């Protein structure tokens, strides 16, 4: 309990310190207010935005829906393909370097193509988000699957497990930890990419709000939306951590 309190104090202290630095920078005029608005004006912009719940909730649900669908597609494809590739030595040796190379390509460059193919709406954002989320998931899954202790598989076969039971009783539990890390990275990337897609070309969502407020030089509004996104990401990460805890509890018995 005291450990938790100490951590909370440290957390608040850092946030407060950043706020003070921010306030000082604007007070002393080190940075033009047009670029970095004063905390007070950001606060005002934030209360104005939050004062109209529908104007906050619409972009949030839009972005979360895009990111959620993108993540779901990437998770299913990444885990299924990853296990498949990881189980076959030949397939893994053929495709693992290819995945690593593709992962290094800034796929954002494909967005104009995706937009031309799928339009500027929901679908192209989902496609871009799914592409980004896919790689950390599939790479983590391939690696984890290929590293499963062969002896655990042999022992299960000796106890009478066939192919599917080896998969469900040995391989999936054995790869859970690294795959969950991959999923966490994938979720973050899906969200960031979807926001970026909306920022580049979109008419709704959090990214669009950022684009609109920055083009109009409404720095306080821009920063208010940034704060909203940061809080959202923290909440999402917290949810993921809670889910991970639950699944670990279910697995480790």
């Amino acid at each position, binding site marked *: 309990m005291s450990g938790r309190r100490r951590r909370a104090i440290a957390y608040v202290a850092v946030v407060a310190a950043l706020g003070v630095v921010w306030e000082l920078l604007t007070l002393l005029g080190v940075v033009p207010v047009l670029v970095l608005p004063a905390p007070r004006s950001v606060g005002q912009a934030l209360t104005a935005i939050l004062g109209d719940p529908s104007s906050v909730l619409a972009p949030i649900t839009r972005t979360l829906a895009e990111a959620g669908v993108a993540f779901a597609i990437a998770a299913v494809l990444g885990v299924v393909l990853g296990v498949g590739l990881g189980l076959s030595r030949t397939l893994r040796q053929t495709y693992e370097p290819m995945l690593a190379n593709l992962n290094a390509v800034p796929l954002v460059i494909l967005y104009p193509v995706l937009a031309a193919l799928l339009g500027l709406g929901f679908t192209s954002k989902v496609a871009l988000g799914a592409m980004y989320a896919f790689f950390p998931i599939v790479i983590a899954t391939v690696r984890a699957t290929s590293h499963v202790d062969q002896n655990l598989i*042999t*022992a299960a076969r000796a106890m*009478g497990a066939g192919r599917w*039971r080896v998969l469900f*009783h040995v391989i999936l539990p054995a790869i859970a930890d690294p795959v969950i890390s991959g999923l966490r990275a994938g979720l973050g990337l899906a969200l960031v990419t979807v926001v970026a897609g909306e920022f580049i070309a979109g008419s709704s969502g959090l990214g669009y709000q950022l684009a609109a407020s920055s083009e109009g030089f409404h720095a306080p509004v821009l920063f208010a939306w940034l704060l909203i996104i940061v809080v959202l990401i923290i909440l999402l990460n917290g949810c993921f951590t809670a889910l991970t805890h639950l699944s670990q509890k279910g697995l480790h018995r």
Partner: protein
Amino acid sequence: MDADVAAPSVRGTTGTARRPAMAAGTIRVRNVRVTYGEVVATEDVSFDVRPGEFVSLIGPSGCGKSSLLRTVGGLLQPASGEVRLGEVPILGPVPDKIAFVFQDLALYPWRSARRNVELALELQGVPRRERRERALAALRDVGLGDVPEAFPGQLSGGMKQRVAVARALVSKAETLLLDEPFAALDEQTRLVLGAQLLTLLEQHGKTVLFVTHSLQEAAYLSDRIVVMTPRPARVKEIIEVPLPRPRTPEMMRRPEFHALQHRLMGLLLPDPPGGDGR
């Protein structure tokens, strides 16, 4: 020293000999050749393991003992020859008749000791409640009744060893194939555990085929010892252990125990020209 010479005298000498509960049948290894890729691991290996008998396989390291054991258990298929359990050829794992304990123990780190033992039953379709009871009983049998919910990572080497043995015992398979199960333990622990294991297996009337590189272990635990040659491994000699059952640690000081160990050592050394190793 033929593979097929029966040895009723070994257990005939004592009244407390192990009695196979229901004779599951003799394991017959016949002319087995095991290969992996181009490598011939064993060549023309034949021997029997009779119900209730404890047979050790010894030989130079890397001679293919483990491959042979896996073949007996149906995890590998012989390139030629065959293994039968009773009259039935072994073509794949038969978990209700043959259980393994592996050298590295193969415990599932995310499963508690109890659930590791339960897995053997789960894969045989035993209902949850019965699984739990039998697993707890098996853990009590091996002296781990007080830590059923501990995870492998929280247990010492000797305790993990016992979990693996409990998992092999819980299935009611009559035959146990043990692949150097004490390899990772220090000398004292392995002697103590070996003696306890022997008592346990005698109580359960199990048939055992045991791969080891410890001559002392082989001499102390076995009814018969199959000595293999370097790779490709063939049967060099099959030796009856001239010690009564039940075994006691005191027997390790007997002259015949030393003589046996000496003889095994001689068999494992490279043949002198013209000699037969004796």
